[in-house]
């Protein structure tokens, strides 16, 4: 691991066994989680107040969404494998698994773009939809859009870590932190998936 800012005369402290980088990442994840909590709570508020809500089976192609979810969760598995390999300093496996995770992320984004454009074609937009429940489109596109931008930034981070791994400049902790963020993005999707497509 790279040296800390602290000079040799101060021992680098750990908090619950974590370096400051990991502590910072965890706190960031909590704050980012609360951002989604704000969105999802608002969505719950609107759902509770709404008299009608479109039937999910009518709006979505649930088999397609399940496939999207499967892709994203699989990418979490490959990410976990990459982190485990990084701990063993197995650079080749890290590189391969990061690449697989990267592909999973890009695939998810492509599928989401396809889903959105299908909905647009059916007249479901941010502000209006055939069922005349504007709140549905308001929340659906805002929240899945926000999640999508998180996946996108995750993909960018994965790309950087992947390039570093290839060059041999990545650190074990760097891979682990990227992994933490990626798992977080996947976890948020589980909530989005449940609350929009299932409930």
């Amino acid at each position: 691991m790279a040296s800390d800012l602290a000079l040799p005369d101060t021992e680098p402290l750990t908090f619950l066994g974590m370096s400051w980088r990991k502590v910072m990442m965890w706190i960031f994840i909590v704050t980012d989680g609360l951002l989604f909590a704000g969105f999802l709570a608002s969505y719950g508020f609107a759902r509770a107040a709404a008299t009608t809500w479109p039937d999910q089976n009518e709006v979505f192609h649930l088999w397609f969404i399940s496939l999207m979810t499967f892709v994203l969760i699989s990418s979490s598995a490959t990410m976990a494998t990459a982190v485990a390999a990084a701990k063993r300093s197995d650079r080749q496996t890290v590189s391969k698994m990061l690449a697989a995770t990267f592909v999973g992320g890009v695939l998810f984004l492509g599928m989401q773009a396809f889903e959105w454009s299908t909905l647009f074609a059916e007249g479901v937009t941010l502000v209006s939809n055939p069922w005349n429940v504007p709140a549905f489109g308001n929340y659906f596109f805002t929240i899945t859009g926000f999640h999508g931008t998180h996946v996108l930034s995750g993909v960018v981070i994965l790309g950087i870590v992947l390039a570093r791994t290839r060059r041999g400049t990545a650190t074990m902790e760097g891979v682990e932190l990227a992994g933490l963020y990626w798992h977080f993005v996947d976890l948020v999707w589980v909530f989005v998936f449940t609350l929009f497509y299932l409930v």
Partner: protein
Amino acid sequence: MSSGSESEIADDASVAAESHHELSFLRKYVFSMDHKVIGIQFYLTAAVMGLLGAALAGLIRIQLTWPTTPLPLLEKIFPVAYAGGFMSPEFYTSLVTMHGTIMIFFFVSLGLVSGFGNYLIPLMVGARDMAFPVLNMLSYWTIVPAILVAASSFFVEGGAAASGWTAYPPLSAVPSASPGSGTGQTLWLIAVALFIVSFTMGGLNYVTTIFNLRAKGMKLMRMPLTIWSLLIASIIGLLAFPPLTAAAVLLLLDRHMGTSFYLPEGLYIAGELLPNGGGSPLLWQHLFWFLGHPEVYVLILPALGITFDVLVTFARRPAFGYRITVWCLVAIAGLSMVVWGHHMFASGMNPLVGEFFSIGTLLITIPSTVIGVNMIASLWGGKLRLTSAALFAIGTICFFGVGGFGGLFLGNAAADIQLHDTAFVVGHFHFMIGGVTFLALLSGSYYWFPKMFGRMLNETLGKLHFWLTVVPFYGIFGTMHFYGMAGAPRRYYNLTQYGFLDSVNTWMPLVTTLFAVAMMVGQAFFLVNLAKTLMAKKNAPDNPWGATTLEWVASSPPPHGNWGPDAPVVHRGPYEYGNPDSEEDCVHQTVPAEQVPAHS
């Protein structure tokens, strides 16, 4: 981003700390990564914003005192806002909005949390810098555009945002609702979003630095209360701000993308039916106050922590009930997250829900009272030295008490429905979020000025400043409590047309304004003091007050890297005054336990 770049950057910073090589002016004072420079940048920025906020308050006072008198002089300065010699109502609502926004986000928060937080955290925990200096620098350079955006909103068409610092929809959600609801409101939202980004970057640094970069021996329960309060304030800020970000995103979409998150069906603006439907303005109130209430404690808690540190130094007594105080700070923080509804008693909520929020709010008085009593008990039997810093700290206790009593009335749903949106509320929150924080900011300024700038502020001017701050403050905001009880609503630009206020209108607004003038004169003493001191030679010793905490080990001002070659090692708690095993009246945190047995 990934950690590779962080570690490279961290390496750069540690090399800089080791070799102390000369940096260019730009790197040293402008785009500095040194927490002390960043802290001073925040502090001075806050001072400028405080003056701007005070100027806006001055215009508000003039309007409330002489609403029917033509003011040709102001018309010359602000030809649009004072067209015909009278302030336009739109300008008045912009003034109260921007006064609140600037004072809360860009004055108190920048001064107390970002300014003192940056300057003091590494010094008081014994670190060489923040955990992530680049992020720290970015945190300052995100605030600068935030301020420019906020300030520029006065010059756009329609003027600055006019929906209050709380930005309630539909006024804030429909661009055509009022002149300030146009571009001004959009700029307001951008400024607040940038502020949140900056606060998040700062907060991440404060918390990780306190958790991970403490000096050897600096256990959590040996940290000064200033650090405890900054830690807890940063944590609640980090938890409470993201939902406001979410709320702001939804509001921007409502304004510019045609969504209806906050807009119900059947809303008429200027006689025209809006196409929106399905939303609720109450949603914004919930999201806003979920931040808004904890935000009060983000600002109040550091004020209390600073007060403790100043009090013990000048009373030469350990802080009374250190551990209890820490746990009370934690309790206040926890409770502050679940009482946001007490800002919404008048919104038509279910009385049972109101009861929940009332009880939660009144529960906060328990830890708050304990802290207040601990502060007073810390003075008991002490050898008080009434320096300017100590006077301001004692003033903080008084304001905390007065503000707290007002809070009892407002936290009670039944009383609040009468007092809601009156000048009583304005008086109350100015004692708390305005007064407690302002006095603590000044107390800390007098106390740490020698450390920050290597010079001692003039005490005579300081004492004049104190009396001309505290007495007028009671005059201004005490009077407002009574004006509110007489029924005066807040945010109204002309209160002369309501007959029921005739008896108080003859004197209350004028008295308030006269006290405000006195307070401004008092602040002039401070500015003169600052200017005189900064122009004088450096004369401050390393530990001018005989304090025990770590920042006083470093030289005044501390060099880059803070400690020279050897970082301090901590052997005892922060407040060992009157240690029976020592002949001195206090034992510094760095004195080894072999020399003087440690008692904390």
